[in-house]
Every structure is written in C-alpha cells, then in structure tokens.
C-alpha cells in the first residue's frame, strides 16, 4: 500500500478503534495504525510468506481465505474493516461487501479503476490492458471481478451502501483536478469510506 493511501486510511480511522484488514499483506498498514492510532488490529491473509512478514512485523494475523472467512468475523465488535485492493479478487464481491458491513460499522475499500483511460486504450488495442495498479498478465491475475468507478458506485447505490467519503487518485497516486472531475476516465484508483 502506498503512502498516500496509508495517510487517507490513517485520517479516516479513529484512534483506539478495533480494525480488521482483509488481505492485509505484510501487515504494514496495521502496524502503522497500531503505532500511530493505537488501534487493536487483526489482519486476514492467506499467503504464507505474507503471514510470516506479519509475524515479523508483530501484527496479529489470521491465516484464512477471505472469501470463506469474512462472515466468521461477525459479532467481534469491529469498528473498521479495510479491504485494500482485494475486493476485485473475491468470488462474490457484492456478498463480501454485505458481509463486511455486517462485521464492522464502517469499511475502507480501495478499487483499481478499470475505466481509466490507459486501460481503455489497452482494450482499444485489442489486448488485455495492464497498468501500475493492474500489472499481472491475464493468465496470472488474481482479479476476478474488475470494475470501473461507475460500476462500483452503481453497486453501492443499488445496495444502499452509503459512501461517506471518497478520494480519487491518478496514476501517480495523488489527487488531481482531472481525476476528481472525470474520475471514471482519469482516476487510476478510488478509495471509499463506506458505512
């Protein structure tokens, strides 16, 4: 997770909250949240190497498949759930979103925008596109359900997921007039606070 994303999440997550990070990677975000916001944090990860990195980082981690695991975290009083760049990797993203909101009061979701102009150009060229956010080849990608910002916000509106905050980031990971004005075309990534 890049530093811009980290600072957004740090802004949104209040001190001393209880946080679960689905797809926590090496646990960096949770470590920073613990150090700077005194959160009680748990990561969910299924990659043994990343789990090891979490243990080295001193982060509490649970080895579990996110698709199968989210509903197990109901009733655990989480204030916050984080799903950073993994929603599109899940088998049923809509159900996962519902489950996450059952698990925590609020969640942070980051989304690679498949509507970004660079990716559209790739498609126009007749090839599966790749970008900094979506680097893997089509035969290696873990992404099952890629969508555009417009698609995702439509889902939120259909399912009454309330978008409390959102930040659009361009390819360089910063906010810009273009990304904010025409997010579906110029944002490479969107970050949502959903409640």
């Amino acid at each position, binding site marked *: 997770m890049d530093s811009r994303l980290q600072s957004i999440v740090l802004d949104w997550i209040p001190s001393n909250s*209880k946080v679960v990070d689905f797809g926590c990677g090496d646990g960096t975000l949770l470590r920073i949240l613990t150090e700077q916001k005194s959160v*009680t944090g*748990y990561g969910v990860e299924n990659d*043994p190497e990343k*789990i*090891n990195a*979490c*243990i*080295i*980082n*001193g*982060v*509490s*981690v*649970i*080895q*579990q498949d996110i698709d199968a695991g989210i509903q*197990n*975290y109901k*009733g*655990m*009083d989480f204030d916050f759930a984080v799903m950073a760049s993994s929603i599109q990797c899940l088998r049923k993203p809509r159900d996962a979103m519902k489950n996450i909101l059952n698990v925590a009061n609020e969640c942070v979701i980051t989304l690679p925008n498949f509507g970004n102009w660079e990716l559209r150009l790739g498609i126009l060229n007749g090839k599966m596109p790749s970008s900094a956010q979506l680097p893997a080849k089509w035969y290696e990608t873990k992404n099952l359900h890629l969508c555009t910002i417009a698609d995702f916000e439509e889902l939120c509106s259909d399912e009454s997921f309330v978008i409390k905050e959102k930040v659009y980031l361009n390819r360089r990971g910063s906010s810009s007039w273009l990304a904010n004005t025409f997010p579906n075309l110029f944002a490479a990534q969107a970050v949502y606070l959903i409640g």
Partner: protein
Amino acid sequence: MKTVTEKISFGDSLTLESGQVLSSFELMTETYGELNSKKTNAVLVCHAFSGNHHAAGRRDGEPKSGWWDEIIGDGKTIDTSKFFVVSLNNIGGCNGSTGPTTVASESGQPYGANFPEVTVSDWVETQKLVADHFGISCWEMVAGGSLGGMQALQWAISYPERIKKAAIIAASAKISTQNIALNEVAREIIKKDEHFHNGDYLVKGESPNKGLKAARMLGHITYLSESNMRKRFGRKLQDPENKIDADVNYEVENYLQYKGEQFSKTFDANSYILMTKAMDSFDPAKDFDNDLVKCLKRIQAKLLIASFDSDWLFPKEYGLDIQMSAIKAGIDSSYIELDGDYGHDSFLFYSDQYASALKNFLNSNG
C-alpha cells in the same frame, strides 16, 4: 549447547486443583543454553502427553534425541545460543518427577492409583515454582504442542504478567468429544489388563504391559494421518525375518507392535491414565462462566496459535476457535494453518513454514 539435567526438590506442600495435597514433590528438569544476567531470555517448553524433560540433544547410548530436538538447539528455531530453554517432566509423569511410581512418604509404598488427580493448571503452578527457582520473573515464551500447547495457553491465563508470548501448537481450549472417547478406550484397555490390579500393580511387582501396549498402539494411530500411514507403510508386507510377532502380516502392524512394545517398557500405566484425564478435563473457560472470551481477556501475552491441516485428533477448527475468541477478547493473537505430513505429530517435526513462523514469533518485538 550447554545442557543441565537437574532434579529439583520442593519442600513446601502443594495443594492441587482437586484440593488434594502433595506434602512435597520433585521435578526432573533439563535446561539448554544460558540464562542472561537480567534473566530475560527464558523459554519454557511444555511436553505433550507422553513426553518428558528431555526435549533436546542426545545423550550417549540413547536410541533417539529429545522430543523437540528438531526445534530446540544452537542455531535452531528456538535458538539455545540466544535463549535459555527450560523443560521439565510434569508431576504425575514417570520420568523422574513425582508421580504414581514415586514412593509416598506417608505409606512407604508407591502412590500407584492413589496418586492424586492432576490438571493442566496444577502443572502450570509447579512450572511457576521452577521459574521462581531460576529467578525468572517473566518467560519470553512458553511453547508446546498438543497437551503442551494447553499448558502454554493456561500459563497465559494463570500468570498474565509472567509470560510475554505463548505458542499454542496443535492444541485446543478443550479437547473434542472424539478425543475423550479415544482416551476412554485406551484407559479401558489398560484397566482390563489382568496385571493392572486396580492400579496397585507396583506393590505386587507386576505391570499391565499388554494393556499399556495396546493403548499406545491405538494412540499412535491417532497421532498420524491417514496419508502419512499410506505413504510410509502402504500395504507393504512385513519381511518375515523382522517380524515382531508371527501373526503380523503388514509392515504397519509390525510398526505398531514395535512402538507399543517399546512404550509399554518405559511408561507407567497409572501415569497414562492420569495424563489422559488431565487432557480430558482441560477447559480454562469453566472458571469464567464457560465463556472462553471472558477467560482470554485476562491474557497480556501475545499468542501464536498453530494448527496442522493433517491433524484429525486436534482439528484445525479447534485452533481457529481459540483465535476467534481471542479476537472477540481483543487480545494480540495470530493463527496459522500449517502443512504437516505427520498428522497430530507434525508439531514435533521441523518444516520451513512451521519453523519460520515460530522463530519469527519468538524473535518479534513483544
């Protein structure tokens, strides 16, 4: 690796969880490595059901190394060049610590079946006295597999301020119904041996070896996975020259016969019964309105809970249960699922994933 084997005598009486009292007792201990001057590098390893104080290294003339030799040693997962590792034979055992084979001062006879019931909490109490003996105010880690993992969990609950990390491996917060059932079959087999004499076999100069052997054979099957037995023995026929018994057909039979036989020569039947009872009764939540979450809230230590996918005796769901309760309790706890080839016994053996998790946990900042 500096190794010291020492029998420590405790003169004060010990009141057990059952209310019964041991007027004095001894613990057989073994330590590896050296305690630093601030006494902050101590690790306690707790043995499983039939283990003992001899956890690492190999003594002259011994057929095999200590039970956790793949994990404990200089440069190993629990690095004895850095940590001072304490291992001991629990009370009720039969490897030097006070147990059913010990002669009771009151009667001048071996305790035998009269040895009081002991629990995991009782073991933790005696281990605490060992910590005091060495001047260790806080363990860097308490670790164990199976029944040893239960002791690590109990430590974190009983003495929150005296333990920084607990590695709870192939264990559970209480054992399964199936596990109690298997333990009862084992006990029944032992008790039905004609030489058992209601547990008073020692005074008669006898031993229920046949029963003990059969119980261990059953137990041994439960410690291995189906796939491990298949890979290791398949349906290979036993070579006739090395048959332990004329009736044996397959290698696996011979193996179980051999293992059972060896075990029955070195283990005590009353200890077997007592240890299985301690395992059955382990349920730390019972003192907290049967609420494991409430119980775990006491914990200040960091937990690492590890389960093995091929373990059907302590299925991984039981490890995950502790983890989920730990999250509800809001305590620092991680859960990992490991590939283990050996079923329940996987916790005894080195594997890259297992060792690096345990090592990183031990070396991470408390």
